[in-house]
């Protein structure tokens, strides 16, 4: 076994294990943390595919930003951490997903050269869809194609070349600006009365939660400063 294969197996175990943990855990916060491990493993796959640029982007955007956003969302949402969600459909969903994956793999994956499913009565409808035309038309690469050494510089050159990707590149900037405006709109200024009412409701619910979490009702009263420091956010 080559070193690459050893690394691939370690990464695959890490990614599948952490991904399984993410979808099976009832603790959303721990799930969000394990998602980072899965993202990191995917970055490792990009490295194995000789695509360091994607690996860097994966680490920066998915681990650096999106994971933080997910963790913030969990920490922002009331009762999300204490909640114990129960999913009674996990088993049937897993079977359905596995079946669908198997069909797609046989129909459009590399195996379609070996097994032809287009004659099967129910599945033949699948082959008439637009996505079948797109997916079925992919020329799967089995050959080991070398990645040129200068691929990052080539990408950078293509990005600012007027005949290649300069226009899409600049459009990305406008797209980011549009998302920026949307984010500001969602977090916009609201009427003071609206905000005050919401804060009062939150404070009331928090007080109820705190009362429920108090281990001993006979606990000595706390110094005034300690209570104030938790309430000022």
């Amino acid at each position, binding site marked *: 076994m080559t070193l690459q294969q050893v690394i691939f197996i370690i990464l695959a175990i890490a990614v599948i294990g952490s991904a399984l943990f993410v979808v099976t855990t009832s603790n959303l916060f721990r799930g969000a943390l394990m998602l980072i491990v899965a993202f990191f493993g995917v970055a490792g796959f990009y490295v194995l595919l000789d695509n360091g640029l994607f690996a860097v982007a994966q680490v920066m*955007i998915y681990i*650096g930003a999106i994971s933080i956003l997910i963790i913030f969302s969990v*920490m922002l949402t009331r009762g999300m951490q204490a909640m114990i969600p129960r999913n009674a459909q996990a088993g049937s969903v897993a079977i359905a997903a596995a079946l669908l994956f198997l069909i797609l793999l046989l129909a459009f994956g590399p195996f379609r050269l070996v097994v032809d499913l287009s004659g099967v009565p129910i599945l033949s409808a699948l082959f008439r869809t637009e996505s079948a035309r797109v997916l079925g038309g992919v020329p799967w690469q089995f050959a080991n194609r070398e990645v040129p050494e200068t691929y990052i510089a080539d990408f*950078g050159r293509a990005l*600012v070349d007027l005949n290649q990707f300069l226009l899409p590149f600049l459009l990305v*900037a406008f797209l980011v*600006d549009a998302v920026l405006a949307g984010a500001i709109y969602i977090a916009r200024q609201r009427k003071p009365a609206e905000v005050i009412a919401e804060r009062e409701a939150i404070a009331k619910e*928090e007080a109820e939660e705190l009362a429920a979490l108090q281990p001993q009702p006979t606990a000595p009263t706390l110094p005034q400063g300690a209570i104030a420091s938790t309430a000022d956010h």
Partner: protein
Amino acid sequence: MNDFLPIFVLLVLASGLVSLVLLISVLFGPRRRARNETKLQPYESGMRPIGPAQRRLPVRFYLIAVLFILFDIEVVFFFPWAVALRELGWAGLLSMLIFIGILEAGHFWLWRRGALEWEKMDK
């Protein structure tokens, strides 16, 4: 691929060290279970802990996180451009300046709106 080998070695060393330290503390640590309830409490500067450790964050953090993603995407585009910068010359610099200019316009706008100020948004 070989450029990333040190990172992989670092990962292996880091996880190995963490496992080793945990293993040592399991092997040599005291095994008596704490009967005293005070010993089981989380440490909070000698104070009696108030409420759960995982508190809710102000919703303002969400906007900060979204803005961070957007400017993170901007930085990812710098990376391939910077590798090819020398041969791209003035045309490459100009293109990137336009790109940054469009994003800076958005940045300036949200700055003017007070989105970066902690107190202004809900007053």
